């Protein structure tokens, strides 16, 4: 090991954070850029399914809440893009990677959102799973990412609670509403578990990222946490658990559960989910249609600069 590497590893082992101007291994930088930008893309793409429901949310209150949530997601995307930018990649490079398919985003957003109950289930389960992951990442070894996660976790807790509250209203409503809630749970439970990624043994980037403390807990451990906390939540809703094999294991102190459909997981990751093409196409269209806004900003700034220069002269 070079002295630089030794110094880097000493900080990692002592639980000290790595800051942007510190020396870091090229692969550490790469892994971080991949993970943080993927995380940022997920926040941004995640606005699409929920944004679609703002006009259709069942009351003014639900609309206002949904608007606030979507606003938060945009903000979270911004925090994360900015954190990634401290590693030397530009915003436009990241957007380009998202649009060309080189960079991924959370596969959960490639599932169609069919009913209002799906929106409730997303807040509860998808944001719930994201929080489990993000709470763990508050302790990531890269300073700007860690600080971003702390901020995001603080803001995120309302997301899950509003989703669960909306779910509770449906589950305690008419038989039709309850059936809708059950259907949403049945469809979103499994993809939510897949959000934690492949089994540790199959995860290409996990080992190095764990060693460098970019990730603090393994995919399977985080998924187990989520499985455990969700059992009670389903019970309080009075809905049936989608996993018929769910069973408390006294010895492990955890719930045992069914294995996931990994063929589906890889298929969606590799671009064959219901909405992959639609999500990216929409992002490209929105980006292109926003061109005139960026042009206008540039033109306005130039005008302002010229005016200032004239006044100074």
């Amino acid at each position: 090991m070079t002295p630089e590497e030794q110094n880097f590893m000493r900080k990692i082992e002592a639980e000290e954070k790595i800051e942007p101007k510190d020396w870091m291994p090229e692969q550490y930088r790469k892994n971080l850029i991949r993970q943080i930008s993927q995380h940022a893309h997920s926040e941004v793409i995640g606005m699409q399914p929920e944004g679609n429901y703002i006009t259709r949310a069942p009351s003014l209150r639900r609309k206002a809440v949904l608007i606030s949530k979507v606003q938060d997601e945009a903000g979270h995307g911004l925090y994360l893009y900015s954190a990634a930018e401290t590693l030397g990649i530009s915003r436009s490079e990241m957007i380009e990677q998202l649009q060309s398919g080189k960079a991924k985003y959370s596969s959960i957003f490639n599932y169609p959102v069919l009913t209002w109950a799906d929106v409730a289930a997303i807040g509860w389960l998808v944001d719930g799973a994201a929080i489990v992951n993000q709470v763990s990442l508050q302790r990531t070894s890269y300073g700007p990412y860690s600080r971003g996660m702390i901020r995001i976790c603080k803001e995120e807790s309302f997301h899950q609670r509003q989703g669960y509250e909306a779910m509770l209203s449906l589950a305690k409503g008419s038989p039709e509403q309850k059936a809708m809630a059950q259907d949403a749970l049945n469809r979103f439970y499994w993809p939510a578990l897949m959000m934690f990624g492949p089994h540790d043994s199959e995860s290409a980037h996990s080992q190095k990222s764990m060693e460098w403390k970019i990730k603090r807990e393994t995919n399977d451990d985080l998924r187990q946490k989520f499985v455990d906390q969700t059992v009670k939540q389903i019970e309080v809703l009075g809905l049936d658990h989608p996993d018929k094999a769910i069973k408390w294991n006294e010895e492990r102190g955890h719930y045992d559960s069914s294995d996931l459909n990994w063929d589906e997981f890889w298929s969606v990751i590799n671009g064959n989910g219901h909405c992959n093409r639609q999500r990216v196409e929409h992002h490209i269209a929105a980006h292109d249609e926003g061109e005139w806004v960026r042009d206008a900003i540039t033109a306005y700034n130039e005008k302002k600069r010229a005016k200032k220069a004239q006044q100074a002269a």
Partner: protein
Amino acid sequence: MSVITEKLELFEVFIRSKRGLDHKHVGSLHAEDHEQALEYARDCYTRRSEGVSIWVVKSSDICASQEDDADSFYDPNDDKPYRHATYYVLPDPVNNM
């Protein structure tokens, strides 16, 4: 009597007390340029190992919101209590989410 500080720029000083934490504003000082401000800040603000990193920023480069604007700046948030987690009342067994 000429006052030297009038000829020197004012800088704001931010210190990171520990790796991983945010830089926090600790005060200001006069200096000729950024390099000097950094040295002065080290001598003045980190005499007891208060920091592991210092930022200095020209005070004139800071654009700040005005105290008097606070109403129009922040008021609109008062009618959005649903942005807070505590707004949502959940049954006790699941209230820790």
